[in-house]
Every structure is written in structure tokens, then in C-alpha cells.
């Protein structure tokens, strides 16, 4: 801005000096000059001032030239009086021509500036478009890479199940023949299958590509199904269930199977860490627009090293994923978040750990027959 002002002031000073110098030169030879000569010289100066200094300078130089023309070159000299009425025509013609010249230059400069601005804008838009195209191309490449990765993992997870089924069947035959190593083969085959499935699910969760069937599901149904699955995995485990007596009909907005998976994971973890003979507790309560499932045990609690990386993949510690793949809790954590909920933990009063699974409540009202 300052540079522009300095530039305009310089042009103004220059053209005023030129006007003064030209006037002095013309005055010195006033007797031999015609009014037309003066008019041409002044017109050139006004044009130059308008072209270089803008409309304001053009007007100022026009006004000065007008006055100088009248004062020095129209009789009687050295006064602003105009004796001959025809000189008024000359003077008015000069004034109008000078004004129009200033205006014209201003218009041309304005249009040039506008044209440059548009051109700059177009260049900016073109650059932005090129940038967007590049980013879009990169995003497409990333998406294609993610799809390819997902397909490979899905294919691996799918294809690995058939040979594992055959391995399990062979292990069963070995067990029938009295080979007690067969159980180990079956367990490891299962673990391999779970690992493949978990890696696929973790990959989908991290890419936001996990398909979830989120709909109102009844809490008691979820709890019953979780206890049913836990009983199959840990038949001797005792679970104390505390439901929310204030809300006998309680629904969560969640995917049934995946929420069940999280609950079974938490219950199974708790069962593994609870000392023999101590029950684990599953308490469910509505808290505003959330339903909280609390799974508590009287185990040794979480070591500090485990706490920091509890929900990170492969962060296996004493409390890591129950599936033996080191992915159980990290998948549970992401599944909770993917359903608009959260999975957290707190140390339990009196010893042990409490995991809290929070999910959005679904408002459902009992129908009367």
C-alpha cells in the first residue's frame, strides 16, 4: 500500500514539475506561439499524467493546466480574465478533452486491473483444481490399495478356514486313536483361524469399512446371549448380573453380534483374571442417552505397562485379548467407537478392574395387546 502511495506521489511531483517547466518554456516564447501549440503541449502532459498517475492526478494536472492556460496564454495575460468569448470555447474544449482523457485512462486502467484480477483468480482456480485432482488421484490410489488389502485379508481369512477344518478333522481322528497331542492341534488351529478373522476385522475397523447392522436391540437379550456364549467357553465361571430396575425395558442402538462379541470378550477376560471362587459382575444401567455395561472382576488389576497400551493392537499383556491373538480388546475398543459408543476401564474399588462399555440408548416403548 505504501509503495503505491509513494509511486503516486512521485508521479504527481514529476508531472507537476513537467507542467511547470513546459509552462515556463511556453511563456518565454508566448509572443510567437499559437493557442493550438499550447493546447497540444498541455494535452500531452495531461494525457501522460492520467496514464501514469491515475484519474486523480489527471484531474489535478488538467485543472492546473486549465488555469495556467487561462492565466498565461489567454489575453489579458497574467490574469484569469478571458476577454475574447471565443477563447472560452478554446478553454472549455481543452477542459472537457482533458477531463475525458483522465476518465478514459481511469476506465482503461480499471478494466486492466479487473482483467488481471480475473486472470489471477483463474490461475488460482486452475492451480487448486490441479491440486484437487492430484489429491483425488492419491485418495483413489489409497482407496484402491485399502480395497486390495481388504480383499487379500478377506480371501486369506476365508480360504484358511477350509484347510483348518481338515486339520481339525484329522486331529479328531488322532484323538480317537488315543493321541493326546490332538487337542493341542485343534486349539492351535482354532487360534490361527481366529487370528486371520481378527486381523481382517481390525483392518476393516481401521479403514472404517466394517459393516455394522445397527438397530434397537434389547439389553436383556444381549446379556442372555453373552452369558450363553460365556458358559460354553468357561463353564465354571459365575457371573452376577445386575440389571437396571429403573428401566425394565432397555434397548441399545447397536449391532447385536458385534456388541455381543465385545461383551463376551470382556466377560471372558474377566473370567480369566478373576481368582478362583470370586464371581465376576455384569451390571447394566441407563445413564442419560447411554447404556453402560460394567464388567468387573477381582483380579490383580492392570499393570502400568499394560494400561498405556491396553487398546493398541498386539499389545499383549496379562489383560490383553482373550482370543490369544492380542487383538481382542483393540477390536472391542474400535467396535464400541464405530457404534457411537466407547470402551474404557477403571480400577475397581477393593481390587480388580472394571471395563465400561457405553452405547447409545434406543427409545422403544412396550406395546399392549
Amino acid at each position, binding site marked *: 500500500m505504501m509503495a503505491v502511495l509513494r509511486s503516486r506521489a512521485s508521479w504527481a511531483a514529476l508531472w507537476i514539475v513537467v507542467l511547470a517547466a513546459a509552462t515556463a518554456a511556453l511563456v518565454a516564447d508566448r509572443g510567437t506561439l499559437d493557442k493550438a501549440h499550447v493546447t497540444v503541449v498541455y494535452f500531452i502532459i495531461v494525457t501522460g499524467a492520467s496514464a501514469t498517475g491515475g484519474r486523480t492526478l489527471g484531474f489535478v494536472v488538467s485543472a492546473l493546466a486549465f488555469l495556467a492556460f487561462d492565466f498565461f496564454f489567454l489575453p489579458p495575460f497574467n490574469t484569469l480574465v478571458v476577454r475574447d468569448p471565443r477563447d472560452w470555447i478554446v478553454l472549455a474544449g481543452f477542459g472537457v478533452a482533458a477531463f475525458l482523457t483522465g476518465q478514459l485512462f481511469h476506465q482503461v486502467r480499471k478494466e486492466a486491473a479487473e482483467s488481471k484480477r480475473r486472470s489471477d483468480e483463474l490461475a488460482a482456480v486452475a492451480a487448486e483444481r490441479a491440486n484437487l485432482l492430484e489429491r483425488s488421484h492419491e485418495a483413489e490410489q489409497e482407496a484402491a490399495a485399502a480395497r486390495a488389502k481388504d480383499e487379500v485379508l478377506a480371501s486369506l481369512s476365508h480360504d484358511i478356514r477350509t484347510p483348518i477344518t481338515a486339520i481339525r478333522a484329522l486331529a479328531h481322528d488322532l484323538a480317537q486313536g488315543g493321541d493326546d497331542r490332538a487337542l493341542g492341534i485343534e486349539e492351535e488351529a482354532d487360534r490361527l483361524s481366529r487370528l486371520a478373522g481378527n486381523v481382517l476385522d481390525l483392518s476393516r475397523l481401521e479403514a472404517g469399512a466394517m459393516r455394522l447392522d445397527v438397530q*434397537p436391540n434389547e439389553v436383556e437379550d444381549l446379556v442372555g446371549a453373552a452369558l450363553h456364549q460365556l458358559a460354553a467357553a468357561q463353564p465354571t465361571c459365575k457371573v452376577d448380573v445386575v440389571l437396571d430396575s429403573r428401566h425394565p425395558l432397555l434397548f441399545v442402538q447397536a449391532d447385536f453380534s458385534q456388541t455381543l462379541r465385545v461383551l463376551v470378550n470382556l466377560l471372558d477376560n474377566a473370567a480369566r483374571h478373576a481368582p478362583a471362587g470370586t464371581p465376576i459382575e455384569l451390571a447394566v444401567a441407563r445413564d442419560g442417552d447411554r447404556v453402560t455395561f460394567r464388567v468387573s472382576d477381582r483380579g490383580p488389576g492392570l499393570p502400568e505397562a499394560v494400561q498405556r497400551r491396553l487398546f493398541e493392537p498386539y499389545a499383549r499383556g496379562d489383560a490383553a485379548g482373550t482370543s490369544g491373538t492380542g487383538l481382542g480388546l483393540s477390536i472391542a475398543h474400535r467396535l464400541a467407537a464405530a457404534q457411537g459408543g466407547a470402551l474404557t476401564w477403571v480400577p475397581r474399588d477393593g481390587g480388580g478392574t472394571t471395563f465400561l462399555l457405553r452405547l447409545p440408548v434406543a427409545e422403544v416403548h412396550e406395546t399392549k395387546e
Partner: protein
Amino acid sequence: MRLRSFPWVRQDLVLIVDDEVQIRRAVRRALEGTGHGVVECDGGEEAVELNAAQHPALIILDLGLPDVPGIEVCRRLRAQGAGAILVLSARHDDAEKVALLDAGADDYVTKPFSTVELQARVRALLRRARRDDPTETTLVLGNVTLDFAKPLATLGGETVHLTKTEWALVRTLAAHLGRTLTHKQLWTAVWGYAHGDAAQHLRVHVRALRRKLEADAVRPALLVTEPGVGYRLEKPS
């Protein structure tokens, strides 16, 4: 819906359909000692032909067949009037299980399954196929008795009042005792159509039934949830 019972079905025959020879071998070995004859094939078209020609009591059908999609084979077998269909699937998503059951499969086992699990499913399906419609008689499930003729329900000898919808629901489940019915199959059987809140209605009525018939509604032993798929009525062991 009623149990399918076709007089031409050969109760002593099982058809195994899988393109993986190791899986066919594993299934065949699992069936040894059950007294059933076994026929095998590795494609969907051949499975449909074999079913039409030999009428096996049970078809163990792999979903990943090279010639025809497994779910299509399932539909065609069901349209032929097949016996029980047990599907073997390497996929674990609920939507596929629901689609299979809706297409006429009676049960499914996901890979990798254990021999013991497969044997249990096969026994249950063959037993079910031979049984009369339990809703024509009085059904005893542990300490619950359901007399569909009167109708009268008792728990530990005490009469339990069931609403009209609850009777329709328990009757549908009892007619397919031990078999998982999808939410859609239950809606259609009980309500005749699926309205906007059908799933929620179903869950509310299942909850009410459990509170009336189960010894502990939080640990249901009779009315079991198949996660993401539906419900089944089980006879306590």
C-alpha cells in the same frame, strides 16, 4: 410353517456336496457309525440331480461351489422337496446366515467346525426330520408344558397366561423345535407381514415370553437367541 416331511425321503442316506476333497473326507468320517449311507459330489448341478434321483434325508452343502452359488443350490434343493439341508460356510457374517435360512437351509456350520459339532448338528437334524409336528401334541420342555390344543402353558405345574401373540410365537418356534428361525420367518409366521417396528415387536414379545416361561429370563435355556439371525426353541438337555 410346518416341518417338511416327504414320504419319498430315504432316511438312511446323506448327500455331501463340497468341491474340497479333504472336507468331503472329513464329513464322511464324521458320519461313520451313524448308520447312514453317504453319496458325494463336488458341484451344485450334480447335487440337484442326485437329490432328485436318490432323495437323501440330509444334504450337507458347502456354499463355495465352483459351478452354482451355494444359496442358489439351496433354493433349488428346497424347491425339489429335499430333506434337511445343513450348510457349511467359510463366511461368518450374519446377513449370509439369515439369507441361507430364508432360502430354505435348516441349519449351518461355519468353518472351521469341529467333528463333534458337526456330528451334533447332523444328529439333531435327522432326529427332527423323523419327529412329528410337536404342536399337534403336548410339548414338555423341562418344567414347562405347552398344550397347544387347549391351549395351556404351565411352568412348574403353575398355569402361565400367554397372550394371543405369544401363543403364535411359541407355536411357530415349537413347530421347528431346535431350529433357528430368522426374524423375518418369525414376523411372517406370527404377524403375517413385516411392518416398520416388526423387529422391535419381536424382541419385546420374546422378552415377555422369557419372563413367563424361563426359570431365569437373563439366562434363557428354552428360548435361545442366535445372534444376528433369530431365535430357536430348545429342549433342555
